[in-house]
């Protein structure tokens, strides 16, 4: 199964579905969907990387944090994420965790940011996983 994402109809915010052969890849595709709302990753370079670990009570919380970090890096660090990767995922004592790597560049006066995402939400969030594929659905607040 290939990986990818698509946008679904939503009046006020943006809703998308992302998929891949594994949960890791579906998460990465969700990040790509969100990034497509914010800037054109094709014209940006990858000069730096930031690594981050998250844990939560379920995969919903992990997905939310994995995506939210992109907003934090923009606002607090002026760092534009070009690619968000899931390096490793696991579970310790019943709590899932995730190790991620964000690569991108520092924002400068020339970089064009074309859309604002205010927050990642649990609204209609759905994570579907079986042997052959993983599909996630996310609504972000615009």
């Amino acid at each position: 199964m290939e990986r990818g994402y698509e946008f679904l109809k939503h009046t006020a915010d943006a809703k998308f579905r992302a998929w891949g052969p594994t949960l890791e890849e579906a998460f990465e595709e969700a990040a790509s969907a969100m990034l497509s709302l914010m800037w054109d990753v094709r014209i940006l370079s990858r000069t730096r990387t930031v690594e981050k670990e998250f844990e939560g009570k379920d995969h919903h919380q992990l997905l939310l944090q994995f995506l939210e970090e992109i907003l934090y890096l923009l606002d607090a660090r002026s760092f534009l994420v070009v690619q968000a990767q899931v390096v490793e995922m696991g579970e310790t004592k019943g709590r899932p965790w995730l190790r991620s790597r964000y690569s991108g560049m520092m924002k400068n006066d020339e970089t064009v940011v074309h859309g604002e995402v205010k927050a990642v939400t649990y609204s209609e969030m759905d994570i579907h996983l079986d042997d052959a594929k993983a599909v996630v659905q996310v609504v972000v607040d615009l």
Partner: protein
Amino acid sequence: MELKRISDTAWEIPAQGEMKVPVVLFSSPSLLDTIRQDKTLTQARNVACLPGIIRASYVMPDGHQGYGFPIGGVAAFDRKEGILSPGGVGYDINCGVRLLRTDWKAKDILPHLDSLLTGIFQEVPAGVGKSGLTRVKAGVLKDVCVRGAEWAVENGYGWEEDLLKTEEDGRMPGADSAFLTQRSIERGIPQLGTLGAGNHFLEIQKVVRIYDSAAASVFGIREVDQVVVMIHCGSRGLGHQVASDYIRQMENAKQSIPLPDRELICAPIHSELGRRYFKSMAAAVNFAFANRQMITHRVRTVFEKNMGTSDGMNLVYDVCHNVAKFETHEIDGESRSLCVHRKGATRSFGPGRDEVPEAYRSIGQPVLIPGSMGTASYILVGTEKAESLSFGSTAHGAGRLMSRHEAARRFRGEEVKKEMEARGISLRFTGWKGVAEEAAGAYKDVEEVVDVSHRAGLGRLVARVEPIGVMKG
């Protein structure tokens, strides 16, 4: 879903099943048609199931689907039994509007419009991820979050009297920066004094019609063609992060409250978590007040440079659109302190209430309802009737009709700009995509929203203003 018409402008979903109170919508037949197309009604009904809710779960005329609570949702909760919910306030805490009056007429401004807009565009950073001109230290930011617009005025941003014309005097009590996460502070620091993006804007407008000259004159609006300035923005990344942080903390807390929808996550008002959320939310409210106050100062500076003075640029009022507050309301003849959530709704208090600035206490507070980009906005006055109808609340804007995605597909930024210019409106912006997404055609008709508010008695028409210069983030 059973909808019972209860007056010319109101519909009701009677309490049934888990609902503790009915849903009451202020609407019109055509606005109802659009409301039925999304989850607004289901969301309003879910809110009606929450513990401690009083009287009804209300939906204002511009209601549409939101996160948990509908946008345009108003719900009041008993202090003992009730809850606080981040979804009942919204992600953009204290997103709000302020209006500055001036003594100029449109013809005085037009020759300078270009340089005014260019100046404002330089002085008020706009757009996504755009940093402010002043960068404060974390300790200072915490102070800003406690003291709000008062901090701004003390540091040279604006006039002392501005504070008296701001909801909560620009400083919401109960704020405590100690409960803000490091992340929210870090996101707030670079964004103090910035407009942001999305539907946020700054407009130079002219008065085109006065409906109530007595009220208008009390607000400083004297004549048609008079120039005013409207600023629409909120608490930026800091507020968004506060909402996200507390949604997560409430998710992780042991929940004893049965919820019809995960998005309605909440905490009892009197619980430790409920109190911490309120204190952090109030901190974000104050950040937003300070933010709008700093922008006000920069706008006045640009007018001074171009017009020789900023005399007469008094603040008419500053209103919150996304907030929860403790207020006293009369319930069955008894005066009670309630926690009122207004999400995408404007407080609309009538004459006599202590919360209304002294200058306006004889007539009621100004209610500012912005239209969509390039369309009219309205000034209303709060009413006593609204206090009995909706805990003193009315609409907050036009409300989206189509998604940004669809708007960007349907409209071209270049054409939207051309069309606005043909109507005599100058536009400054940070990206074409945003212009297309905010095209007036993507929004409901603000005229109808305001008309329902007026006819229902939630807020009475005072004046209509139209933009001559628009700056959008």
